[in-house]
């Protein structure tokens, strides 16, 4: 039982963490909470199955194409649903515009791909021994993403520009940083991370248009638990959620497992509204 809780809990937790990071990457660059993260995860699984199983492309080609499509969807999201809203006064309309765009993509997938879950191929040509690739790949993807983002944000010029925009967009613009182009680039990056989550998690979750709802919600929980904008918090929150969810599956089972997850989620937010890794911010009044 413990082995199953650890392997499965960490793997699904890594997928949730990656979706949480997707939310964060879009949020930090734009202060927009885009509800397209779950959609990106769903699309990653469906496109992966389409490229590799249906079209018969090599795994590596399929993988690169999935990431490219994710980046493209991210850019389209920014242009279509975020940029026009940020120009307006009622900026919180992005809740509607991003959600509507995500639902449109989901319906398109349902029509073109089908509404039944479909198989996702084994990605590595190896026999599963003591490690199972469906569990290892999402964890590996999560580690590489977090390390990659750390390197990007701390050791590259563009990463520092991202951080500058996130901390104070007015000051960054005053310094001559191209805010709009950086925001578009961050949405492209988020698109790649979201589809990476779906691609590596699809051996567990299958290529299924209905995954959008669970990824949107369970991917949001790590953000709320870990603190908005904190990638490390999202990873800790995601892994904790996966482990707790799987432990609840074993201990209480059935629909009660989902209830247990929500109860803990609400309790944590009541005790620490800023999230486990977040810090309360001072506001000038």
């Amino acid at each position, binding site marked *: 039982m413990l082995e199953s809780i650890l392997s499965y809990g960490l793997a699904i937790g890594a997928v949730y963490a990656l979706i949480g990071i997707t939310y964060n990457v879009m949020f930090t660059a734009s202060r927009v909470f885009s509800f397209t993260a779950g959609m990106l995860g769903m699309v990653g699984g469906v496109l992966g199955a389409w490229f590799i199983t249906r079209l018969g492309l090599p795994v590596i080609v399929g993988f690169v194409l999935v990431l490219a499509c994710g980046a493209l969807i991210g850019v389209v999201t920014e242009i279509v649903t975020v940029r026009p809203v940020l120009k307006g006064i009622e900026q919180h309309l992005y809740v509607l515009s991003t959600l509507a765009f995500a639902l449109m993509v989901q319906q398109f997938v349902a029509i073109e791909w089908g*509404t039944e*879950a*479909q*198989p996702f191929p084994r990605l590595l040509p190896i026999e599963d021994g003591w490690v199972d690739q469906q569990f290892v790949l999402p964890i590996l993807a999560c580690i590489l993403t977090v390390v990659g983002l750390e390197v990007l944000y701390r050791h590259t010029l563009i990463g520092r520009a991202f951080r500058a925009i996130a901390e104070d967009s007015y000051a960054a613009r005053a310094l001559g940083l191209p805010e709009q182009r950086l925001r578009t680039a961050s949405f492209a990056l988020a698109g790649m991370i979201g589809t990476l989550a779906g691609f590596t998690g699809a051996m567990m979750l299958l290529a299924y248009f209905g995954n959008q709802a669970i990824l949107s919600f369970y991917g949001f929980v790590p953000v709320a638990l870990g603190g908005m904008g904190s990638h490390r918090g999202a990873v800790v929150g995601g892994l904790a959620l996966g482990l707790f969810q799987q432990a609840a*599956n*074993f201990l209480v089972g059935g629909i009660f497992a989902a209830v247990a997850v929500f109860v803990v989620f609400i309790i944590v937010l009541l005790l620490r509204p800023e999230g486990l890794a977040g810090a309360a911010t001072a506001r000038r009044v």
Partner: protein
Amino acid sequence: MSIKRREVLAGSAAVGAVALTSGLAAPAIAQNEPIKIGYLPALTGPSSSTGIGINRGTLMGVEMINASGGVNGRKIELIVRDTQSDPTKAVNAVAELTQRQKVAVIWGPLNSGEALAATPLIARDKVPMLHPCWVDSLINVQKYPMAFRNAPTNQQIGAAANHYVVDVLKLKKVAVISDTTGYGTASVEAYVPMLKAKGAEVVYSGHVDAANPDLKPELLRMRNAGAQAIMPWSVNAGFLSRILNTRGNMEWDVPVVGQTTLGSGQTKALLEKPEYWNKVYSNNFKKVCFGKDGKLPPAAEEFVARLRKEKVEMGDTLLWWIALGWDGSRMMAETFKAAGSKAGDIVGYWNKLKAWPGVYGTITFTPEQHNGFPDDEVVMCEVNSLKDGAFNLAPGYSS
């Protein structure tokens, strides 16, 4: 000689006046008018696989009837409205079919979700209705006196599976699991008491979110409780395949007995290994299953030969779906021939229908019972024996 527009209009008016005063021409026109059947399949959308299969049989039946001269010289016209698996669309189509098109009878909807929404409206408009949906409440002679079902009810489906587990396989400890949909939860609530009434011990009973990707905890619970059979009730191929994959990975040799989706191509496609489909038994229908001799019953064999001759695709659907569509169109045509196309006459004829010999089922209606499918023709089949859309009867049945 040139004909002026005014002369044509005057001539037409004269002919119309004669027709109106003599009353001769109108019946002659009515006798040659096609008989309209309002047809509500779900040809697109999430529940369309059933509709696509039934549609092939329905179209073939109507084409054959019309090719042989129609019914008493009148063609049958199918007025098709794709419900798109959406109850709202089905409701809108009903209004059009009954009030504008004035159809003689409605065939469908073919899915329970749409039928639940559409049946009260069809009853209100007093149009006879024939449908193959399983939800029990869709047939109620008091509420819907013109609605008839040429397929089994959910009660019959559950009873056949319970009978197979308890009486044929002689297994007494049963695990019953469903997804959290209305269909799944209602099935578990209905079938668990039926199992207990048969003397079975339900050692596990639960509902699980179909999106839950790991069902190992649930299957471990079943195994630890001593389950000798698993009965899943869901139409979600992903959920069912996860049960079968988990059972296979646990190397647990327990039979799985349940709903027809267990034997669907979508479920098969999601299996990690082909052998995980072994010892899986799903509902099916005796008249369209291969017997012990490996042959279909004669009527089904003749039907398959006809399908091949007409080049109707069978590989991507199920034989019983096509046969059901064929039976529906044939039954309606025979009714028009024997009783005419007036609503009261159709209902009167169906109320006395006895042992109507369909390819899919033998249908009997009475004024008190509009569920026409016989209990003994609902059986279980071996899902790993799929060939030409049909399955072998499960072990324990006689041909």
